[in-house]
């Protein structure tokens, strides 16, 4: 007589435990990322209200002080508090990042929808324009655009927006091409819907998660670009606290052994970038039904 061993339950329990642990880890990292972004967001809104700082003011008596209780992030070579300036810098960088991301996603979204929905010669022409933009180094093109304006936050926004729309355009076009072949679009065409109606009723609602994700990922990239332009002296005016300007200034102190004026602004770029990446990954998993069921979110 054979003996039957029931192994289903322990296996299922182990699988459930594994999923439970993974789910808890995902939730923890999402909470941490969201909490970090909320904290930084509050800091950039509240700190300038409660601790207004004249960004042109220097205090050479307190120059290059290491981190202490009075100055948790130390002071720079002009005696300015690195923590306060980093928060001010993050405010400028976030503004530049958010607006530049919105501009680039808006341009890319329109180009992608037009190319994908109309197809044919319009699609081919627009995609060659995208190829043309992609063939140029973004930073070089950005420098060229910034050089046409006086250094300002808007010049940086225009520079980043005009050089980074191609990624969004490609994402949107490929999604529209995929949607175009679906039977429900055929049904809409057969039902007398014009191109604009199909774009408005079917394409745009389906594209919103993709555009949102593209914009979310573009924010840290735009901040990096702003930082690079400011580091090269082409971004924001030198007196204005931006993370790029601070790192640029901090490199001089680095040779004298003062690491804090450049490391802390660097962390202010790195931490929100990682937080956004975690949230973007989570959002991608949630909007993809297959991944959502796999992760049991």
């Amino acid at each position, binding site marked *: 007589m054979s003996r039957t061993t029931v192994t289903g339950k322990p296996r299922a329990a182990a699988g459930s435990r594994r999923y439970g642990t993974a789910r808890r880890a995902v939730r923890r990292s999402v909470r941490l990322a969201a909490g970090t972004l909320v904290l930084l967001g509050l800091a950039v809104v509240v700190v300038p209200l409660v601790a207004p700082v004249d960004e042109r003011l220097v205090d050479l008596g307190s120059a290059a002080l290491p981190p202490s209780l009075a100055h948790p992030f130390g002071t720079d070579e002009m005696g300015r508090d690195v923590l306060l300036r980093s928060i001010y810098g993050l405010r400028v960088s976030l503004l530049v990042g958010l607006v530049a991301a919105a501009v680039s996603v808006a341009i890319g979204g329109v180009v992608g929808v037009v190319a994908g929905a109309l197809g044919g010669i319009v699609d081919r022409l627009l995609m060659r324009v995208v190829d043309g933009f992609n063939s140029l180094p973004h930073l070089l093109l950005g420098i060229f655009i910034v050089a046409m304006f006086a250094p300002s936050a808007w010049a940086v926004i225009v520079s980043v927006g005009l050089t980074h729309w191609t990624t969004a355009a490609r994402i949107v076009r490929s999604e529209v091409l995929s949607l175009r072949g679906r*039977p*429900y679009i*055929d049904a809409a065409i*057969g*039902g007398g819907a*014009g191109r604009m109606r199909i774009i408005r009723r079917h394409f745009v609602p389906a594209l919103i998660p993709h555009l949102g994700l593209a914009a979310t990922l573009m924010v840290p990239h735009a901040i990096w670009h702003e930082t690079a332009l400011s580091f090269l002296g082409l971004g924001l005016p030198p007196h204005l606290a931006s993370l790029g300007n601070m790192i640029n200034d901090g490199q001089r102190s680095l040779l004298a052994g003062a690491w804090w004026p450049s490391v802390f602004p660097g962390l202010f770029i790195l931490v929100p970038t990682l937080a956004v990446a975690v949230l973007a990954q989570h959002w991608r998993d949630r909007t993809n039904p297959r991944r959502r069921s796999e992760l049991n979110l």
Partner: protein
Amino acid sequence: MLEAHDITVRYGRRRVLDGVGIAVPPGTTVGLAGPSGCGKSTLARVLALLQRPAAGHVVIDGTPAPGWRHRAPRELRTAVALVFQQPRLAVDPRFTLAEIIEEPLRANRRPVDRAAELAEELGLTPDLLTRRPHEVSDGQLQRACVARALALRPRYLICDEMTTMLDVSTQAHLVARIEAYREAAGAGVLAISHDTDLLARWCGGKGRVLAWPPRSGRVPRPAASG
């Protein structure tokens, strides 16, 4: 009459339809039987002006179709309605069932009152109409698709394996609704299926079943209803 003449369709090098022709007179049901993968759905898409063939032309009530998809005039596109095989793929997953039925009426700026009448005729309760596709069964969704197809009172209706995934009672109900519409509106119906028994029953009264591949020149046209 809905006519297709010498239709040839290629996917890459593969020729899916080769000189196929068919005629669907108004007021009759024409059955088209053929094995899976022979090109029945492709012919249905060509007849509904949704796919441009490599060769051949479609004539709707004496008017040759000047183009395909958006290049076809709206009046011609809406004269032929297509009910798809898989209702899940044929509806926007973001729409409620009510929106699915109303969409062609809204797109053509017609009153949406007809949507409620059609929903009632097809057995869709007000509760179902507020649900989205993933919240209803295939049968309920296909009922909404049939209601959508009938919303603009098309002169021709193409049912492409419409009942394949449905239970017998839903099949019977949908076929009865379509036959009632045909009788009332004098519309031509092209019923496409691999199930010859179903087609024989469906077309038994007022039509005839064509075997694949249909040829407009060789196959006798079904007699028009009186």
